């Protein structure tokens, strides 16, 4: 508690407060704009880590992450197209509410629900992360290795439209992570001395998220504009409050654990929250599909709680579960910070300042989002060529600033084309980026485990935690096969398919 108060006093220093404000403003903006998300923004801002204090940069990034969750809901509700993947579900009821003239209430329940869930989630984070870190610190290299394998397998198999595509992306990521001479021998350097130090994660992240997306948008530049629903200042009456508070709490209960699990992301908990609210709606059951406030309140709370939940494994174990968390992890590694249990002991001031600033960011977001929602919606009128010209400019600047070498810009273009191709062929980006970041650490832990056991491979499953984790990994991999073998059941249902089905059902 003392530590948190110290952190709070550091978080409200003018400089840190400024970074929090910039972070939440930027985060909300990119959340509102479809196609541009917190992962891309944090990737583009990675070069600021060369000049800025670690605590300030992390406050900035966390503000962007939280802000993206808020901003996405505005677009979902007013435009019926999600600003963020985490707000896909919000559009179902939110846009129906807006069309029925209840846009103000939909925005209000989304913003206040996000605040409630974000605050509860952050409290849970503060309570849990140090405990988890203490528990993890006793684990040896074999367990770490197993946990990383779990994280890689989970982000690859649980989300996305197909496992095969997930594994292709993961393989690409791990391969990019292999480049360099970390082990003494050159690997995949093609005799090029510029590749000897490996490929900087900044270049890969910026290329995949920013350049790939910019090329993709350029290829689909002209689209029929969507009708935006005009809205005034968000507000709710007594009945709306009464119908919203329970979904907020239930959404938080879904969001936080799912964020903390390596099955990561906000898609699953927002979906579950929506389905639950619909089931529990009672006399308001008929309103679902026509604009039920519960269907906005629950998923919006869930996505913010999951953002807080994501930070538990990130800070306590050093495992990223979402694309944004992966890029934040890259930033921490850039500072030479080792996320994980050691972080709490080595850098308590940094950790607690970050945690305290999450409360600050969350409050700021409520303050800037509730009255300013109509203003944020105006961002949607920005022509895409202006936006993406700016993004490409910062992308090139960022890649060049890594080593001040043209070679990095060439790599940027190369990986940008890869990012475009992945979008074209439906390969998920998350496994690639997590693979690039975790790959080298995975190898390090493997090397350590084998060194201690003098090359005895059985050491890898010598710790009970490692064995449990491997069982979970096996379950993840075998689950679809098991489902297929059970008679009377169709093949495995994917989350994406279920969401599609739900959408069709509601849109009818």
């Amino acid at each position, binding site marked *: 508690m003392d530590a948190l108060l110290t952190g709070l006093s550091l978080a409200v220093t003018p400089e840190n407060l400024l970074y929090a404000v910039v972070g939440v403003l930027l985060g909300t903006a990119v959340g509102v*704009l*479809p196609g541009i998300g917190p992962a891309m923004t944090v990737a583009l801002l990675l070069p600021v880590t060369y000049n800025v204090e670690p605590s300030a940069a992390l406050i900035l990034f966390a503000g962007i992450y939280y802000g993206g969750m808020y901003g996405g809901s505005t*677009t979902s509700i007013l*435009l019926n*197209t999600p600003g963020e993947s985490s707000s896909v579900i919000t559009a179902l009821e939110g846009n129906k509410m807006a069309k029925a003239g209840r846009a103000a209430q939909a925005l209000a329940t989304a913003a206040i629900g996000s605040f409630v869930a974000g605050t509860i989630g952050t409290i849970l984070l503060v309570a849990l992360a140090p405990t988890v870190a203490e528990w993890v610190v006793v684990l040896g290299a074999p367990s770490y290795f197993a946990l990383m394998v779990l994280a890689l397998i989970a982000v690859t198999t649980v989300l996305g439209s197909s496992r095969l595509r997930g594994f292709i992306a993961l393989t690409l990521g791990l391969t990019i992570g292999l480049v360099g001479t970390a082990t003494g021998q050159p690997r995949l350097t093609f005799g090029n001395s510029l590749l000897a130090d490996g490929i900087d994660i900044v270049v890969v992240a910026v290329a995949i998220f920013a350049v790939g997306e910019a090329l993709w948008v350029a290829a689909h*530049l*002209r*689209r*029929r*504009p*969507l*009708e*935006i629903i005009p809205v005034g200042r968000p507000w709710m009456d007594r009945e709306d409050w009464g119908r919203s508070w329970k979904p907020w709490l239930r959404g938080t209960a879904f969001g936080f654990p799912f964020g903390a699990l390596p099955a990561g992301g906000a898609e699953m908990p927002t979906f579950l929250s929506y389905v639950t609210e619909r089931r529990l709606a009672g006399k308001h059951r008929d309103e679902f599909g026509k604009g039920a406030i519960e269907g906005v309140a629950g998923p919006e709370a869930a996505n913010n709680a999951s953002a807080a939940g994501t930070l538990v494994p990130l800070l306590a174990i050093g495992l990223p579960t979402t694309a944004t968390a992966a890029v934040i992890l890259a930033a921490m590694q850039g500072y030479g910070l080792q996320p994980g249990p050691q972080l709490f002991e080595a850098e308590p001031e940094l950790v607690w300042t970050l945690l305290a600033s999450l409360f600050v960011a969350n409050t700021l977001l409520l303050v800037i989002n509730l009255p300013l929602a109509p203003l944020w*919606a105006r961002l*949607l*009128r*920005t*022509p*895409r*060529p202006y936006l993406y010209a700016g993004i490409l400019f910062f992308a090139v600047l960022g890649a060049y600033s890594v080593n001040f070498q043209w070679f990095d810009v060439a790599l940027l273009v190369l990986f940008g084309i890869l990012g475009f191709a992945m979008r074209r062929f439906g390969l998920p980006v998350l496994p690639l980026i997590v693979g690039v970041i975790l790959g080298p650490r995975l190898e390090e832990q493997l090397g350590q485990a084998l060194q201690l056991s003098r090359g005895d491979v059985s050491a890898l499953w010598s710790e009970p935690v490692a064995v449990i984790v491997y069982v979970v990994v096996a379950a993840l991999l075998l689950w679809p096969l098991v489902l297929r073998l059970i008679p009377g059941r169709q093949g495995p249902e994917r989350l994406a398919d279920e969401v599609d089905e739900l959408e069709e059902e509601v849109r009818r």
Partner: protein
Amino acid sequence: MTVVVGWTPDPRGHAALQRSAREALAHREDLLVVNATTGTAAVDDRFAGASDVSEVHALMESLGVEVQIRQAVARDIAEELVAIADEVGASLLVIGIRHRSPVGKLLLGSTAQRILLDARCPVLAVKAAEAPGR
């Protein structure tokens, strides 16, 4: 024969629309309303929504004008409008124009000017009723 009008859901577009309806009535011609956007922004206020479109239909029905509305996403609005006028063999192309500030002239091209120069049929340029004090 057909009268083609370049229309946007704003005062300028409305002025052009009303004038074109009068022309179509006077010469017993059809009216083709064209509403075009470059489609580069997620939201474009000059791209008519469903309610704007039905308003136009209602207005034209009350006036007794045979109307068609075409909403287009095009790289270049002026080019698209001229091409559509050519395609239907328009007898007249009606557009709304606005006052432009010197800075605006310096920075931006004019869709209206390009239509005036490029169109192969007569072009009628209409201004919106100006706000008082201008």
